[in-house]
């Protein structure tokens, strides 16, 4: 991926202030945004609705109103838990959940997503963890999550949950040696080639800078 700032500027130059066109081309399922009729059902159906600033309904209107900076810097898309309540109720059948994740990924790619947003940090942790060896190393992932906010916070968290950890150890659900040399998938190089290819295809389709 090119430097986020550069890529952001290039996108801006191409679309002027037509943010809807930018979303349609570059965001997963973005071509659906224009179909929203602003009925409000998704906003009222989201179980987390009261806790975020911009409901899907509002995000879609902001996109159409060209509010690029506010949308891409919003932390609302990151709050989506993929419950799909909005998707099953939307009278226009917009894939709202997918659009939310698409917007989040796009904002991250441009370097505009809120840096400290916990879901964003967790997603990165997860992605790095699972793409490294082709499979998730749960122990490293869990510890990564514990220590996300620093050494002290990490030890505290580990101490609080020590009994669960011990239980899992006894039930053979947790192998401490995974920390040293974790399982890998059989064809690690193959997985990496596949991911690289997928990134290339995505870049070609959406006009992103070459990965």
């Amino acid at each position, binding site marked *: 991926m090119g430097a986020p700032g550069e890529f952001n500027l290039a996108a801006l130059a191409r679309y002027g202030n037509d943010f809807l066109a930018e979303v349609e081309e570059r965001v997963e399922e973005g071509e659906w945004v224009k179909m929203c*009729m602003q009925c*409000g*059902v998704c906003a*009222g159906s989201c179980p987390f609705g009261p806790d975020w600033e911009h409901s899907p309904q509002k995000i879609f209107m902001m996109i159409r109103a060209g509010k690029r900076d506010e949308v891409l810097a919003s932390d609302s898309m990151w709050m989506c838990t993929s419950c799909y309540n909005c998707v099953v*109720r939307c*009278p226009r*059948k917009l894939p709202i959940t997918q659009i939310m994740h698409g917007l989040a990924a796009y904002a991250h790619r441009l370097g505009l997503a809120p840096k400290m947003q916990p879901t964003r940090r967790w997603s990165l942790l997860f992605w790095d963890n699972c793409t490294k060896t082709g499979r998730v190393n749960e122990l490293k992932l869990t510890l990564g999550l514990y220590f996300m906010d620093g050494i002290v916070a990490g030890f505290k968290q580990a101490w609080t949950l020590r009994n669960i950890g011990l239980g899992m150890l006894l039930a053979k659900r947790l192998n401490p040696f995974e920390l040293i040399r974790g399982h890998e998938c059989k064809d690690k190089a193959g997985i990496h080639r596949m991911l690289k290819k997928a990134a290339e295809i995505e870049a070609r389709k959406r006009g992103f800078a070459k990965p």
Partner: protein
Amino acid sequence: MTHAVATNQTILVVGGGVSGMTAALEAAECGRQVLLVEKTPTLGGRTALLYRYFPKLCHPTCGLEINLRRVKASRNLRVLTQAEVTRITGARGDYSVALKLAPRYVNENCTACGACGAAVEATIDDPYNYNLSKMKAAYLPHAMAFPQRYVLDPSIIGTPDGEKAKAACRYGAIDLGMKVESLEIRVGAVIWATGWRPYDAAKIQPYGYDRYPNVITSLEFERLADPHGPTGGRILRPSDGREAKDIAFIQCAGSRDENHLRHCSRICCMASLKQTQYVREAYGEAGKSTVYYIDIRAIDRFEDFYSKVLADQTVRFVKSKPARIAEDAGTRDPVIHGVDTEGYHRYATRHDLVVLAVGMEPSVNGADVPHEIVADSSGFIESAASGGFFAAGCASNALDVNRSVQSATASALRAIQIVRKADRVEA
């Protein structure tokens, strides 16, 4: 009645609502032979079950009465009730039609004196009040029913109640031995006017029509407001019989929704605007109506009506399609949850009663018509390959009464053109 002879110069009209009656009368009054076939025991269709008509707020009885007088006066029109079409074959100018006639168990001698109804004890759901009340199993469908003749429900045939009805009749009008009959006829053209049915509100899961007694449909509301209805015209809550004064109307309940009906039902905005005026009529300034809407579609000249309702202080408009309805466990008050589009405010608003402005779907969905037809994605009939088969009124689209009548008149004209051609060929 079963020896209704028809020829290929006859026009068959299926469905005796306002559309079918209009089409049949227009053609008959032009001198054509017309056979009008209605499935239920009475003409009138759904409009007979409305309290008032928009836009003028007159009572449906008025228009119905004029039409019924025309029916009685017309020598070219024959009416078959409790009759259904089971098959139509042939092509324009020459169709062969199979009919099935259900027994009424009451013959022409009936004077509608009501003695059988008084004698019978069994009761059945009253479909003319959308099952909000019960009626005797020997009944006159409603005050404006045509023909004015009682009907025995098949459930009492062979029971002591059936015998009681027969014994009570002083005119020898009850014939318990009537059977289902079949009939084959020839006609030149067919007008299909089977109308609409309300979308099943229980399918709109988040609104809880099947769970909350104080969530009702717009059709049920018409019956509550009607003095001939189950509550004598008082707007009472189903849960506790208390007067409902704070009433919410939810638009597009099932319409404009890919999960339900794709089309705009076109009349429900006007129906709700009209119904806010029932609330005002009942309570004056003390009544309160709230209309939840995506956008109000009061088409062409109905805009005037909308403007009047907008100016009414007792009516509030909230631009929002509610996400869901909950129920207050203690009071059984429905609570509407959603977010409005003008400001994105989250609300949870309590009301006494919620009326769902349910959508219209074709009463006989395209696939069920016993003839090869072309229907749109909602099942409304567009045309038929055979060339002499026309849809009228709500069988062709979601229409108000005025537009149904226009569509019926147009189809009468088309049918007349067909049978006139048949005329010339024979001559």
